[in-house]
């Protein structure tokens, strides 16, 4: 069955440079530095990436960072809590706009 998303495409990510090498090289160099140990540990960064992957709902990123967080020794609880953080922010982002709705309703109401 043909689909837009193919798990095998994740392994081809590095080949995006075929069409535009200089920008791809810069991106991957930047990407590598972002995820290196820094003020945040590589493990903490991996959990953030897992949460963001769910926010942007990227199947490739979810695949990659489910593996990466496991390999970095994260527990299932930590991984799910990270996703709840993403869900809470997404849900909160919708809900906080309720204040806008309330403002408008109050503006128009007697």
């Amino acid at each position: 069955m043909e689909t837009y998303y193919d798990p095998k495409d994740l392994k081809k990510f590095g080949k995006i440079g075929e069409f535009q090498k200089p920008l791809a090289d810069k991106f991957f160099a930047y990407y590598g530095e972002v995820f290196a140990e820094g003020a945040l540990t590589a493990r903490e960064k991996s959990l953030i990436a897992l949460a963001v992957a769910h926010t942007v709902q990227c199947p490739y990123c979810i695949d990659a960072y489910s593996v990466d967080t496991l390999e970095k020794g994260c527990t299932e609880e930590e991984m799910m809590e990270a996703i709840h953080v993403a869900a809470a922010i997404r849900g909160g982002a919708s809900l906080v706009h309720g204040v806008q709705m309330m403002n408008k309703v109050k503006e128009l109401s007697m």
Partner: protein
Amino acid sequence: MKSLHALHHKLSDTDTQIEILEQGVEQKLGLPLFQKKMDDAGLFPLKPTSLDIFQVNLGKMCNQVCKHCHVDAGPDRKEIMTRETMEECLRALAVSDMNTVDMTGGAPEMNPHFRWFVEECRALGKHVIVRCNLTIIVANPKYHDLPEFYRKHNVEVVSSLPFYNADKTDRQRGTGVFKDSVRALKMLNEVGYGQEGTGLMLNLVYNPSGAFLPASQESLKRQFKRALKNEFDIEFNDLYAITNIPISRYLDYLISSGNFEGYMEKLVNSFNPVAAQGVMCRNTLSVSWDGYLFDCDFNQMLELPVASPAHQHIRDFDAQALMEREIVLNQHCYGCTAGAGSSCGGATA
């Protein structure tokens, strides 16, 4: 749970395992065989650099049946080293420069001659490592004094603990293993193991509870130190991150869970020439329960003896001849060269 051997499972046949690994890498995945990869890295044929570590497998008998066990050990395995073979090992040790005796199993402590063998190795002035599965210490009252025995003979204890919680540990090693391991670790701590200033070394082994590679050893060590201290007041010295080698029960797990090809692809694509240079088979000699010699414990379990036909048994030990041998390689070796590398002493790169 029974061993593959007791179940007459097809993977209890080592030729079948080797065939599956070779076909998987070359035909299914279209990836280079390990020997080719080593040749490209200028490491074929692979030769020893020294003979430092004498790893003795005292037998396949064990009180646990871990899902990933490369030995296919368990209570139903009766193959254990006799005292006569141990004496042959001691004769070889006495005339060699190998300074470390690394005892493994199964549960080496279940061999009735274990304590005698430790004492004899120490009397020869050898550094002794025991790969203790922890739960054996609390399995039966006759083993409760093992921490004191280890302390008395200044044995280095290396113990598997795949994670610092019960969930992941028990999934890999069996129900209740984490709880018993914590109890055993506390007993080791009580006699001084892992405590600063005692010189009594207690090192833990992490290996992934699934079809993925281990994280950075240093990062895992920090996590384990923090979690075990905070939650259980347990101390240890070092942590070795070890990659699961795709043979025996772990191979069975990979195939039955649909992870075999993905795992092999990951191992091959993570080949690290620096790790390949430092593989443990270059300074280790492994002896089986019945006295045969191998380049490592994994080759032992695949029945791939040292490529030195006149010296394949400990009774024919000849350090010079064994130093000139070519190390036997196959596709499972990708497990030792992936990423940061893997050995019985942890990462190699």
